[in-house]
């Protein structure tokens, strides 16, 4: 009987947890557990989701970045539609030029969208970069696919008023030196972006199920729950034996 008591004492916390979690799982649709999504960093890390730091371009003190959905954000404000990735951002004295995979967004100095120059308007699909040098806008194209497009050179000068492209006589290196690389966003913007966008998440139902089965803690967790199951069997046998002995 001593062992029965010891076993009971050592397993009662786990048993209560298993009973409550089992009850929650049984009534998961009613409790809408599958609709509650958790996305805390440690949980996503634990489940092996890689949450990369969002990157953007800091131009003239403003942060330009893509929201992971279909918008170009400038310091948190939705400025234009932008299919990922946001490839490059450059500025002239007139405004900003943000190149996304679906087109080149022309923005004024207040980062308001003036208009978008997309594939339907004649932007070649192989556009790789937008660079500004001496207040002139240059678009760089992928040289390997240039034959399949209607452009004549790897670098074309872009007229922001007429939206025309003309071949540019400029060394690619001169533009390359001017290009800005994407940088991780500051923490405050990372936080707002995470709150606004629909990134990876784990449903509460999955979490409870994994805790209930022990899978949350890997192979050892499963073995532990197996052991608890075995102990419950032993408890019921020793309990029955004790009851018979008392009679």
């Amino acid at each position, binding site marked *: 009987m001593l062992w029965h008591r010891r076993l009971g004492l050592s397993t009662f916390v786990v048993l209560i947890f298993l009973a409550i979690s089992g009850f929650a799982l049984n009534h998961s649709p009613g409790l809408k557990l599958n609709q509650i999504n958790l996305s805390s960093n440690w949980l996503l890390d634990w489940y092996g989701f890689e949450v990369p730091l969002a990157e953007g371009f800091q131009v003239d003190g403003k942060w330009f970045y893509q929201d992971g959905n279909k918008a170009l954000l400038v310091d948190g404000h939705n400025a234009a*539609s932008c299919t990922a990735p946001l490839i490059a951002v450059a500025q002239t004295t007139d405004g900003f030029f943000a190149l996304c995979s679906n087109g080149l967004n022309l923005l004024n100095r207040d980062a308001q*969208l*003036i*208009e978008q120059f997309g594939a*339907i*308007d*004649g932007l070649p699909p192989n556009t790789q970069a937008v660079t500004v040098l001496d207040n002139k806008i240059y678009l760089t194209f992928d040289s390997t696919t240039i034959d399949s497009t209607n452009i004549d050179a790897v670098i074309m000068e872009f007229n922001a008023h007429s*939206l025309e492209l003309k071949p540019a006589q400029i060394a690619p290196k001169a533009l390359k030196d001017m290009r800005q690389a994407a940088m991780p966003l500051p923490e405050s913007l990372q936080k707002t972006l995470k709150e606004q966008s629909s990134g990876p998440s784990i449903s509460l139902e999955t979490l409870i199920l994994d805790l209930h089965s022990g899978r949350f803690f890997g192979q050892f967790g499963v073995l532990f729950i197996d052991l608890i199951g075995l102990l419950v069997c032993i408890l019921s046998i020793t309990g029955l034996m004790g009851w018979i002995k008392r009679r």
Partner: protein
Amino acid sequence: MLKQLYRAALLTTAAACFVFTSLASFSVNAKGVYQSGPDFFTEVFAQQQAESKVLWLTPEIRSQAAAIVGHPVRGLRIRYHQSDSKTAWILEEIGKEMPITIGVVVEDDVIQQVKILAYRESRGGEVRYPAYTAQYKGAALQEDYQLNRNIDGITGATLSMWAVNKVAALALYYHAAVNQSSATHQP
């Protein structure tokens, strides 16, 4: 007798599979870019000298345009081509989830042509058929900024149809705005 029945069943199944796959591939093919903007303008103004211009959206134009399409319009200017009293516009409007790119030609405040240049939704692409878009020819804008005629819908393409209706009304409004601004700039 059984053999004949078996053959008939087999043939019917094969025919059904064929029809089903053709229909499926047909609906997938509805997605795509049918004509680029520059090609559309070249086609519209083949015989005329057209000029590429921009209409700057003043707060008044923006607010009326937003009322027509039911949401704020994006961009501070709209590009169009003009030759005399004829203007051609390329505008986008979301059908269900994806934008539909629509070319609209307006002459003397009346729609001359509506053409779907790019359709990106998986369903509802029937709005691109000339039989449907021909209904807009001759449509004008009423005082309440609605089209002055009823457009017959297509089953399963209601949202796309609404999008085309909005864009047609918007192009007519922009055309009127261009005429108005050029009239006020006349000496």
